[in-house]
């Protein structure tokens, strides 16, 4: 269990003090995949660096299994860091070491040597699917392969927590997907708690159980990913979940209302609800924007509808659509 309690971090710069993190409180349960999402400059990286004390918090505590990270001696902190490892956007592999030796690196730091350590490193390369790249140097690998080596390296000391700092931000969508499945796999098989820092909603959507939305150094919303996706409350969350529709893209005509329909696992592929709205209620809607995807026969995502009618008819339409299961409807001002 990771508890972040009233964490604040300020930096003193030439232009004065910058409050990067303001009074953050979060709990992350063992075995969870926890996403921390926010725009650039929201303080995500600072937050994750506070967890392993690469940044010393100005105020507040980080408790890991009840133990305060801030209260550890230098030596204890080094030992604890083997328990909370990290992967990065830039991979940060040692360029003059081959893959096997990169994976061996944290073991060497911990005093592990010889055949046993090598055996362990080989196993990990196998886990990440790079058993044949032992002797290859990082310069000869693709971005996705580099991140795989970094993951193997992060697992070498049998950590309980894996911190991912924008780990997929430098990768193309397909590679991102394969790295995320690898992380999910590791989380399941080894029970490692994973904390994912990202600015990509798709990453959170794909693997996180819970998410905290960070805006301007503050947690504005946190909870289950499905809850926040279906009804984001804060402005920052809405911006992230519905990036395109927050400020109305299209000029509205008189009496035109915008209605957002959010699918959260609705069996919508078999329900032509726009057509039935027209048929049953005589209300015609046009699709102004949509970002949905089907997983199995279920739909996830959201759609923005434009309906030109008076208030009562709009209300009727909203009530009608709300009756479908797992569909959430609201009017957008």
């Amino acid at each position, binding site marked *: 269990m990771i508890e972040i309690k009233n964490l604040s971090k300020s930096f003193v710069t030439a232009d004065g003090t910058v409050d990067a993190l303001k009074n953050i409180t979060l709990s992350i349960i063992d075995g969870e995949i926890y996403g921390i999402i926010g725009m650039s400059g929201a303080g995500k990286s600072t937050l994750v660096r506070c967890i*392993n004390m*690469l940044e010393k918090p100005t105020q507040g505590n980080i408790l890991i299994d009840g133990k305060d990270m801030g209260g550890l001696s230098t030596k204890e*902190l*080094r*030992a*604890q*860091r*083997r328990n909370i*490892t*990290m992967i*990065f956007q*830039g991979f*940060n592999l*040692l*360029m*003059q*070491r*081959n893959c096997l030796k990169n994976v061996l*690196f*944290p073991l*060497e*730091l*911990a005093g592990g040597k010889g055949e046993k350590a090598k055996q362990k490193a080989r196993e990990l390369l196998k886990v990440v699917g790079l058993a044949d790249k032992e002797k290859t*140097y*990082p*310069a*000869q690998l693709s971005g996705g392969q580099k991140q795989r080596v970094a993951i193997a390296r992060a697992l070498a*000391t049998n950590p309980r927590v894996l911190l991912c700092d924008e780990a997929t931000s430098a990768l193309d969508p397909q590679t991102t997907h394969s790295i995320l499945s690898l992380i999910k796999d590791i989380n399941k098989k080894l029970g490692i708690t994973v904390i994912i820092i990202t600015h990509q909603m798709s990453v959170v959507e794909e693997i996180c159980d819970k998410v905290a939305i960070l805006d301007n150094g503050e947690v504005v919303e946190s909870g289950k990913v499905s809850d926040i996706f279906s009804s984001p409350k804060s402005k920052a969350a809405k911006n992230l979940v519905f990036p395109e529709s927050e400020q109305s893209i299209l000029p509205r005509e008189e009496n035109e209302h915008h209605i957002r329909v959010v699918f959260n696992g609705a069996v919508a592929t078999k329900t032509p609800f726009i057509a039935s709205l027209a048929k049953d209620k005589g209300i015609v809607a046009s699709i102004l924007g949509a970002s949905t995807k089907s997983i199995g026969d279920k739909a996830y995502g959201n759609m923005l509808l434009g309906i030109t009618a008076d208030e009562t008819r709009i209300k009727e339409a909203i009530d009608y659509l709300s009756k479908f299961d797992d569909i959430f409807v609201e009017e957008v001002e």
Partner: protein
Amino acid sequence: MFDSETFQNAWEIIKTEIPLAIWETFYVTVLSTFFAIIIGLPLGILIVAGDKGRILKISKPVLRVIDVIINLLRSVPFLILMIVVFPLTRLIVGTVVGTAASVVPLVIAAFPFVARLVESSLREIDPNIIETAQSMGATPFQIIIKVMIPESVPSLISNATIAITTVLGYSAMSGIIGGGGLGKLAINYGYYRYQYLVMFFAVLFLILLVQLFQSLGTFLAKKSDKRLKQN
């Protein structure tokens, strides 16, 4: 311009003295560079590792003193430095003239230069890699030994090559205080006795030595660099 007698004379000198002179220049250069690295490498490491307390906690005044000493020694012209360090040379070698004695001022002149070269090599390392090592619980000593130095080996070799060719140039100057080698040959025969042919050959071999060190250095630097796509 050359009658056959002067030519004969010069050829005699070249044949008898050049091999020894080459050897003297070679060993003075290599030895001085070696000692300069022994002193300069740790200083360069301290400067980078101590910078803003990122890796090692070194007090600011100490770093400042190192910095000033390096700048000071680097600003003194080598010719003057040779004379200024006479007392130290006498203390270490027992005499101030001769080939062995020339090693002392060469080391004094070269180590600050080496320290700066090491500093520039180490600063090339991506700070994220150092942060990564810290995130894995590396001690400052492990960061220096296992990350900073190994990661900058190609650059360190390139810079060592620059150092050795510079020391070679300086060593030629030490002919003035009786340091042996090609420099002495060029000055004594060429300049003082107008044996231009001897001077020409001495300079030619200096050029060849520089070429040799440079080619070897470039080859090793390239070969050691695993960032280049080669096998």
